[in-house]
């Protein structure tokens, strides 16, 4: 499939996007990206443009895509550093999305509960836990993606799960 995508086959791009775009968008959304859908499209534009230089297996490709998504998210946060608030860090924003229709939609998707769960995590814990759970990356892949040591990632994920446990029990 990678060879077909490198050759410019539309079906290969469609397949790669369909497989990974939902989880990438979910990761960006739960991380508080302002426009997760648009950011996902930016991520895949860069990924598909850089595909000729990629060599590796499918799990490595997945790890690469999430690494790019994480970098784009960090870039977006830097650009938005003067914004008043970030969605997932602000409980008021989490509790009151913009309007009844949107709130109902979030409730229907179960997102409200998930946002509340994620809001109990620190930024570092959320980053690691989401990459492990949503991105389905290994500890080593997460460590490379976020630029931390394996030990630091293990500590963060353990503390994150402990915080979640306190929240749900």
């Amino acid at each position, binding site marked *: 499939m990678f060879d077909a995508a490198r050759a*410019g086959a*539309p079906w290969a791009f469609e397949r790669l996007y369909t497989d990974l*775009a939902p989880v990438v*968008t979910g990761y960006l959304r739960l991380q508080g990206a302002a426009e997760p859908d648009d950011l996902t499209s930016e991520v895949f*534009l860069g990924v598909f443009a850089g595909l000729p230089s990629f060599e590796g297996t499918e799990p490595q490709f997945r790890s690469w895509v999430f690494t790019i998504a994480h970098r784009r998210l960090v870039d977006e946060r830097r650009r938005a550093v003067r914004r008043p608030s970030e969605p997932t860090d602000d409980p008021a924003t989490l509790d009151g999305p913009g309007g009844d229709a949107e709130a109902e939609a979030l409730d229907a998707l179960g997102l409200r509960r998930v946002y509340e769960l994620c809001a109990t995590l620190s930024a570092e814990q959320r980053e690691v836990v989401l990459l492990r759970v*949503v991105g389905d990356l290994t500890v080593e892949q997460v460590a490379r993606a976020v630029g931390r040591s394996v030990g630091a990632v293990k500590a963060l*994920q353990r503390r994150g799960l402990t915080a979640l446990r306190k929240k*749900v029990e």
Partner: protein
Amino acid sequence: MLPLHLLDEDTVEALLTGRPVQPGLAPLAGAVGQIRAASRQPVRPSDELARRMASGDFTGITPALPASEPARRRLRSWLAGASPRARVVTGAVVVFTGLSAATAAGALPGGAQARVESFIETVTPISFQRDEPAPDLVEDVSDTRTTEPGTSRPDDPGKPVTPPGKPETPPGKPEKPPGKPETPPGKPPEKPDNPNKPESPPGKPEKTEKPGNQGNGNGNSGNGNGNSGNSGNGNSGNGNGNGNGNGP
């Protein structure tokens, strides 16, 4: 409910990867499952992405870098787009910073260490401390002056150890050794005799001088230059004045 410390590594891995866990951890496993399930909603690509996927043409898009060595690649791509002047300046800054750090750490071989130290002291306000104790060296200089005041002075003045603008003495140290005159008694008469004597180049540092001796070297240098200039101007003016007065 299990105690919190029972979240060992295997349990953490099981929770994060969706494997079955102990019944006591079911609420936590359910919460992790909710997070996972919330990220499975299909998403439509943007118009541009959809168009490019259909055509397979991604020219003009900045490609994402492979995850292996992003920093190096990023630097390489930045250098590729930079102007030649920016590359040269960047390279010079990197080399100079590295040399300064290596010199400050004393990591260079002996000869190179001394040369780079003197170069850095010449072009920057940085001064390096030598290991030798300063008091002994001050004593040596004092001995030289007292024993051979006439012969030693002409060699000393033109060799400043520190560049202009550098603090002459470290804070807390006296500028001159106590009891030592700023200008040696035999110096002024010697200067008019050698008005055209070339001075030592100001930028030439003397390697054998030590930090404790630098203040003395600078003071001598300044005195030597000032005396030479004043003596030459004063003599010239006096000669003209005498000639005019005697004529009529």
